[in-house]
């Protein structure tokens, strides 16, 4: 024993210098975070740095793309474009929007799978949970720091992406993605929906990881959850977020005359009193006798007005955030109550 100590002592003095010198150099930067936040940042710094980097790059790309769009429009607003110009716009910018929207649509799921799922499952799988929860900080403080720092980064990054993308898309909103702001991904990529959706998938990833206790299992389940949730959201929820507006015009007249930027959802036939019939009612009616019998005199087009978009987004985000809070409450309750 003493032999080992003797042998070690000459090198001891040399070594003592190296770490001190190292920490002095980076000391100023490290002062920022302390205690548990430092640990959480250090544990996830690769993922969080990557997230920040991707945000900055994406925002720069959106800004560059906006310059292209503004150049093309040259002071005109999008509805003023004639048919040929509109076609040229699609040729030049359709793939841009497609790519941006694919990125922003898949982003929440990716964050959920790669940041959310391993956040606590990783600590459980590698046993390091036993290490952190037996230091002097209480379990409540540990779970708070573990959740707050990554979720704060998620909120900041996605809010920034949402705002910058909205800034790029808004000048051309009537024609970008062929004017479809509802089902093309724009609805989920702008306003409060992008941060809310990302938060939900991240927190659900954390909760799934906590239950699965295995990183790979948690990631797979989170991916499936995000996919299934998105399908249900698109099929059942998105169109229920607003009240459809009606545009009524005579059966043989011109129409519908929808406001610019509105989304046509459905077409009906209707009586003067407003009773609706399916669009194919009296399809084979050459004489008009069938329609006359039913009293059909008008056509009705149901649509969402562009002005409804913000309200629908806030309602959607509210639902997503309510689900997030429920999942978050489960995570905190379980982390505090159950020895993990």
């Amino acid at each position: 024993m003493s032999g080992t100590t003797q042998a070690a002592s000459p090198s001891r003095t040399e070594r003592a210098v190296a770490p001190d010198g190292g920490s002095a150099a980076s000391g100023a930067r490290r002062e920022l975070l302390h205690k548990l936040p430092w640990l959480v940042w250090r544990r996830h710094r690769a993922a969080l740095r990557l997230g920040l980097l991707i945000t900055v790059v994406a925002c720069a790309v959106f800004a560059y793309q906006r310059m292209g769009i503004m150049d093309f429009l040259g002071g005109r607003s999008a509805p003023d474009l004639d048919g040929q110009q509109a076609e040229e716009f699609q040729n030049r910018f359709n793939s841009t929007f497609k790519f941006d929207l694919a990125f922003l649509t898949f982003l929440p799921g990716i964050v959920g799978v790669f940041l959310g799922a391993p956040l606590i499952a990783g600590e459980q799988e590698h046993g390091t949970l036993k290490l952190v929860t037996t230091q002097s900080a209480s379990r409540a403080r540990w779970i708070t720091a573990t959740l707050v720092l990554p979720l704060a980064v998620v909120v900041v990054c996605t809010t920034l992406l949402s705002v910058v993308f909205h800034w790029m898309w808004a000048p051309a909103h009537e024609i970008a993605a062929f004017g479809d702001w509802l089902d093309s991904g724009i609805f989920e990529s702008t306003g409060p929906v992008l941060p809310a959706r990302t938060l939900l998938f991240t927190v659900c990833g954390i909760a799934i990881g906590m239950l699965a206790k295995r990183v790979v299992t948690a990631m797979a389940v989170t991916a499936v959850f995000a996919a299934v949730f998105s399908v249900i959201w698109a099929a059942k929820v998105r169109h229920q977020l607003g009240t459809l507006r009606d545009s009524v015009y005579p059966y043989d007249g011109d129409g519908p005359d929808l406001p610019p930027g509105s989304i046509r959802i459905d077409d009906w036939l209707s009586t003067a009193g407003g009773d609706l019939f399916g669009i194919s009612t009296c399809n084979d009616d050459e004489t008009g006798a069938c329609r006359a019998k039913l009293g059909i005199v008008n056509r009705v087009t149901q649509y969402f007005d562009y002005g409804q978009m913000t309200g629908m987004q806030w309602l959607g985000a509210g639902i997503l955030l309510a689900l997030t809070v429920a999942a978050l409450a489960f995570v905190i309750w379980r982390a505090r109550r159950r020895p993990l």
Partner: protein
Amino acid sequence: MSDPSPWAIEAEGLGKKYRRGWALRDCSFRLGAGHICALVGPNGAGKSTFLGSATRLVQPTTGSLRLFGVPVSDPAVLERVAFLAQDKPLYPRFTVAETLRLGRELNPRWDQALAERIVRAGNVPLTARIGTLSGGQRTRVAFALAFGKRPDLLLLDEPMSDLDPLARHEMSGLLMAEAAEHGTTVLMSSHMLSEMEDMCDYLLVLAEGRLRMAGGTDELVPAHTLVTGVAAGDGVPEELTRRHTVVESRVTGRQFTALIRPGGPLSDSWEAQSPSMEEVLLAYLRSPEAPTMIADEARLDGPRAAAA
């Protein structure tokens, strides 16, 4: 130590029930501060469950546990207790220096100089990542993290099991030296009975979730006698069972051997020997039905004079 409670651990009716049954049941004892205590028992005896409940990783189903007079449910105990889990979990991507910083950031009583000294004594470079270290080096860093916390109570779950003999010897020396210097109470579970004999002055024996033996080695071990004599038929001679407590007995050919707790003087027909601690422990571990022995000083209702 200016401590209001002289008892490092006081367990009262402590029990933990899992879905498959009781892992720990009705465990009552106390351990005075400053002891080096061995926690012995076969696999599945409840050792890890007990250590888990002392480190707030396991929530006991019944009973109470106090460390230095503070209920274990109070987060304040975390500061005074350090725990080294069996698999010695550390973040593999952290460097040694970052691992020590973890200790510094999360523990108000942290002793950086002590932790660095332990790490350096093993020639572990501070810039190395944990994932690249050998088993012995990792254990040393884990020890440094535990000792740097300056705990009053150090709980170790089979700390030496994955070390080679050389590293094991080194770690035991380190443990004894640091514990002696700071007056740390140590409770460690282990299967290495002979090593325990050298290091520990207190014993807790668990079997099938129940406490079988508790007390100082200087009281428990001399309370037993190893007797040898001529076997007379099968079974334990009535002469022994009448006045003494037989822990374990064996017949080899014509020779009868037994470990007993003498209840009075032995007759001359028996050859009596003092057993080693290992012999006593093995006897208890082999005979789960042997009577429980809790020394007075380990009893919760033990002599109050000792507490004062």
